[in-house]
């Protein structure tokens, strides 16, 4: 399992990355992260929504209610221009951390 702190720090880039691939809703986002991480990243489901709402409040994502064929309503989120910009910045930051760690480990084990 991933450490709590790392899960917290990676939530926004993960959500932004998923939404940059297309519109989605809370439940599907959680399932997708579980699948992609092989169940190693586990979010407390109800805690995702405050994060989504805060990201919406930041102007990164927007939402709309959609009624599906069986009459159930889901709130779909999609990324906005500001969100794409934020994602770009987060990718740069995570890329930097990743490259520094890679160099350090290379020096250590080579």
């Amino acid at each position, binding site marked *: 399992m991933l450490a*709590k702190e790392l*899960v*917290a*720090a990676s*939530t*926004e880039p993960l959500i932004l990355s998923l939404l940059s691939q297309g519109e989605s*809703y*809370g*439940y599907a986002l959680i399932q997708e992260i579980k699948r992609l991480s092989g169940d190693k990243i586990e*979010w*407390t*489901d*109800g*805690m*995702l*929504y*405050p*994060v989504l*709402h*805060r*990201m*919406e*409040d*930041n*102007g*990164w994502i927007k939402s709309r209610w959609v009624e599906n064929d069986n009459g*159930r*309503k*889901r*709130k779909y989120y999609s990324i*906005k*221009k*500001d969100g794409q*910009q*934020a994602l770009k910045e987060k990718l740069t930051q995570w890329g930097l951390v990743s490259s520094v760690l890679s160099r350090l480990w290379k020096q250590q084990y080579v």
Partner: protein
Amino acid sequence: MFELEARIKAWRSELVRAGLNQPERLNELESHLREEIETLVSSGLKEADAFNPAVSRLGSSAQIQTEFQKIKGRSWLPLTIVLGLVVSMLSIVLFVALREIAAGNLSLLFAHVVSLTAGCCAGLITGVLGICYFCWRLFGNLTPTRLQPTRRALLFLNYLSTGLIATGFILGMLWARKNLGRFFGGDPREIGGLCVTAWFIATAIVQQFFRISDRKAMLMCISGNIVIILGWFGANMFTALQSYGFGTQWLFELLLGVHLIALLLGFIPADSLPLRTPRTPKTESYV
């Protein structure tokens, strides 16, 4: 016997007791819960056995509410200013009315003028909120948490304006009946007053009974200002009855021009202008 709907209802009530009382948030969480129950049922569990694990995966109501509280209560400067202006205006109106009552001067005409003026001013101030909304929408960052109190304030201000304007109009009719021998004489000011009253009553009905978007509600507010400008200031230029000022042509044209531009801004899609700067979040939270 296990009843899913009753259990979901009880779970929602628990969230409300924890302080999570916004229907949209509750609906979203309920939609998630139902989805989780369906997944568990499709994997072989009975509804009764799926409910508790699904609830526990969502987290406790207190935990969820604590996280939501972190994004609560962001104020929007134009709304604060507008509400401040309305409170100041109502205080002045109350002070003037009480002074006149104390002096024994309260007449039908005075009550009509004060009520109509206060109603139109409240309406104009609401319209200014509409102008700010479209400017912020295009050039700033207007977010759902800021819009929630704005929606409530807009509804309140529209009811206030409608009530004052309608009262003022009726008092005017009573005064006209008493002093001029008829309720309605077709004078430009009276026609203007009738149009303003009709528009605000229509706005209040639409806001109460139809679920309209924030953009449409704000467009209606700005249109309300245009109706006031034409019906009040515009009619002053052609009036045969007493005029309370604002008969200056350039001021009339300026106000009309500004509101027409604001109305046009409302038809420009949000996000279409590259003038907005992305905001950086202040907090991280755990999921």
